[in-house]
């Protein structure tokens, strides 16, 4: 069984879906303004394809279950948080429209989970440390926070008293693997091509503020 994170349609009320889309639209609009130039389009496009492809790398976890790499933190390490937001937006969008992995109305929340608690959170954590432990923590937190947020968002239909502990514990394991993998990928990049690791991207404080704001919205659901 593969642990899926993207919320399907049918689990959320219309109002809640709209709240997710509102946040996602704001974050994407900000990311578009944070200095994304045409020059970066090929780079973002090919990295988006690579994030997709990296999700084919599955690894077994305890008891016959398996998980796959998420790649959000890795994308943020290479592209910086803002370009990574756009890359993850494209990945989530293609998954929802062409693979039906994640709903279209629920996509707002899936974007919050992957772009905010993935790309932005991973980018902020990594650029605070800029070393292998930083990459590990970024990978761990993106998996863990995305899962906790997903459980909280579905609280309308599946009571959080059940889903929250299950998601938090299972994704702590996923997060350990994601963290190790992100750190290993970072070290490889650093050795093979140090310039592939994003230098200090602008707007770190804004990114941190957005993560906190979205975190508060999710916590108050």
């Amino acid at each position, binding site marked *: 069984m593969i642990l899926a994170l993207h919320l399907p*349609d049918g689990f*959320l009320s219309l109002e809640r879906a709209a709240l997710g889309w509102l946040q996602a639209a704001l974050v994407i609009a900000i990311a578009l303004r944070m200095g*994304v130039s045409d020059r970066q389009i090929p780079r973002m496009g*090919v990295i988006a394809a*690579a994030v997709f492809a990296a999700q084919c790398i599955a690894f077994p976890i305890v008891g016959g279950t398996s998980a796959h790499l998420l790649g959000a933190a890795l994308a943020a390490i290479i592209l910086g948080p803002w370009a990574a937001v756009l890359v993850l937006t494209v990945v989530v969008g293609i998954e929802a*429209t062409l693979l039906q992995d994640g709903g279209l109305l629920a996509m707002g929340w899936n974007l919050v989970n992957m772009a905010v608690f993935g790309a932005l959170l991973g980018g902020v954590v990594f650029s605070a440390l800029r070393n292998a432990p930083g990459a590990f923590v970024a990978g761990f937190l993106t998996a863990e926070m995305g899962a906790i947020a997903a459980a909280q968002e579905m609280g309308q*239909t*599946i009571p959080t008293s059940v889903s929250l502990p299950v998601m938090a514990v299972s994704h702590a394991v996923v997060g350990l693997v994601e963290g190790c993998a992100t750190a290993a990928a970072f070290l490889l990049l650093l050795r093979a091509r140090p310039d592939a690791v994003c230098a200090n991207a602008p707007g770190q404080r804004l990114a941190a503020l957005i993560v906190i704001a979205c975190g508060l919205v999710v916590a108050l659901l």
Partner: protein
Amino acid sequence: MAHRWSARTRVLLVFAFLVAVAATRAVPTAWAVLAGILLGGCIAARLSPLLILQRALVALPFLVAAVPLAFVGPPGRYESICATTVLSVAAAAWLAATTRFPDLARAMAQLGVPRVLVSVAIMAWRYLFVLAEEVGRMLRARTLRAPLGMSPRQQAVSAGRMAGSLMLRALERSERVYGAMRLRGFDPQ
């Protein structure tokens, strides 16, 4: 008939359908009507309804996870979730089955999705299959080197190194792509 509608019309229809599904979560008669509309859509597009239903099974893990609700939740809640989820996923599957990606991207641009996002999506779609094949080769190479009995930590590190070198290859490819685009007159602003 449905295949003659523009992609933009189809996208709007599917979103309207999804909103209708979400708005009538507690009305069983509405589910039947909406299922009928979807069936009509399949026939109009000459698609097998079974194929669409099969694609809708993607949401199955979530429905399994929600099974406890059938016993502890308010009566009818679980049935409502199953019906709305299957209807919504089937509608999205209908859109995917009737619309080619370039048409979908054009429809998104017409509907006001920012140009940068659409360009990134088109490029991601173009290289998705190239890089997926690359990952397939990497995984096969790893299997051939027979790393049986790797510890979980070693597995994670090996997955990470693969992801890292995949990213490197992707970056290098994107540089070649960018160079080719410049040579053909692409003018970044």
